[in-house]
């Protein structure tokens, strides 16, 4: 019996309209994080799946749904707006195109960017952790530059701003299964390390 080959798509959601007014209260985002913001709380794994499914059906019709309706949202973190999808290997390009053609999520314009296509979920997870760490490092560097320039923005404050809604991330761990739990802990850990 041949094993069913899968592909795991790691994606991030970018919000090109910039930070929403609701988030701007926490802290002013730095330049590199202009388009990264936490997703609205109404966006969950199930609602995301239904949005993607409707995008597939509008772009690829019944045939598309039949081909790749069997995808699964393995992980989604609204705090970092990253997630992992699983799909059979033959059809991942259709799903990817459907993601690319998605224009808005929960009423605000959004661009879904596929960061990595991987054969195992482990590699996708590692990449997600790496991305989060990189983002924190970038923000810290920028914050340092701002400090030298005379802007008094503390590191902690900026990092807190990046992961605004960090509480919701922790709440999300309760819902997710073990594997995802581990990964989120990883992300949160790295955040703490950088705080010191």
């Amino acid at each position, binding site marked *: 019996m041949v094993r069913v080959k899968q592909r795991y798509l790691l994606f991030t959601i*970018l919000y090109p309209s910039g930070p929403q007014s609701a988030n701007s209260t926490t802290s002013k985002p730095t*330049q590199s994080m*202009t388009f990264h913001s936490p997703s609205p709380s109404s966006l969950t794994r199930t609602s995301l799946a239904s949005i993607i499914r409707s995008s597939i059906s509008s772009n690829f019709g019944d045939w598309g749904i039949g081909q790749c309706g069997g995808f699964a949202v393995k992980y989604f973190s609204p705090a970092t707006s990253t997630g992992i999808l699983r799909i059979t290997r033959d059809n991942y390009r259709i799903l990817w195109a459907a993601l*690319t*053609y998605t224009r808005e999520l929960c009423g605000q314009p959004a661009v879904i960017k596929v960061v990595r296509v991987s054969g195992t979920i482990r590699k996708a997870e590692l990449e997600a952790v790496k991305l989060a760490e990189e983002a924190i490092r970038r923000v810290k560097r920028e914050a340092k530059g701002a400090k030298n320039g005379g802007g008094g923005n503390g590191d902690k404050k900026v990092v807190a701003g990046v992961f605004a809604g960090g509480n919701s991330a922790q709440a999300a761990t309760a819902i997710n299964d073990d594997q995802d739990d581990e990964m989120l802990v990883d992300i949160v850990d790295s955040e703490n390390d950088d705080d010191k």
Partner: protein
Amino acid sequence: MFYDLNIPWTSKDDPELARTVAFLDELGYNVVALNQTIAGKIPSKIAGIANLIPENPFPDHPSIRFLRRVTIILDDPSQNYGLTSLSNNFDIVAVRPTDEKLLLQACTSLECDLISLDLSIRHPYHFKYKVLGQAISRGIRFEITYSASVNESNARRNLLSNAAALTRATKGKGIVISSEARKAMLCRAPFDVINLATLWGLNQEKGREAIANGPRAVMIQAKMKRQSFRGVIDVVEGGGVPKSTPKEVAKTTISQKAPVKRKAEVGDNNGTAVETATDSPQPAESAKLGGEATPGECSETRPTKKQRKKEMQAAKKAAKNTLSGSVGGEWLR
């Protein structure tokens, strides 16, 4: 390096354009061409078309290189478009033919760098390799713009069929994909675009070429046309001898050391005798080094790199020997 050769220019103070550029930076593009479109009747003196785009419009994005591009919408086959004079003001000159006749004209004779077809509408004619192949053999590439297809479903349908027809007619060669995005939300990341290209009949490699190497070729070719002599020869550096090259230093040391070695040979022929014996094919060569003995003969048989290296080693050894002894130590001081 990823390229987006079509971002419509509005004005420097337009917040949407600035946001689009920032978003492209975020998505990972390295070169962005700002596009100025000229439609309708061309003024008689075409060179008078001012370039409204400043040299470096967004200095707060140091990682992006900006190009300035002009697109001329062709709608009159009888009109003479003096495109060559335009290329002095712009980095890239593109044309957008509106019917088959003009497409043929653009492919065969017009002096442009890029042919940008509006693929979001239905064309009443087919793309033929006979026509498009002429443009490709002249080094002109075809542009597919995707942002209209992201925005609207009707445009998406047309783009799918047109792009598939274009890739079939060009056999996947000479295609450039760019966005033509008027809003930041219509841009897509390079790899997402490559994935879209696979839906149009390109494969992964050709899709990547359409967004990385293809646009680069367009950029460089346009630059060559503008700057170089007949598009063939370009002076990259002014020439001249660079000061204090290490080669020259090495030569002088050899010529200085050569007599030292000979003295060493005379004085104590321990190490050097062995060394000269090893390069037996030209035993006289090492002695002649530095042009001391007979300068005329030296030019006949130049020592190869390997031999020179060996001789250098031999000379060094000899110098050591002489230092430990007393003969000729002053040469090294």
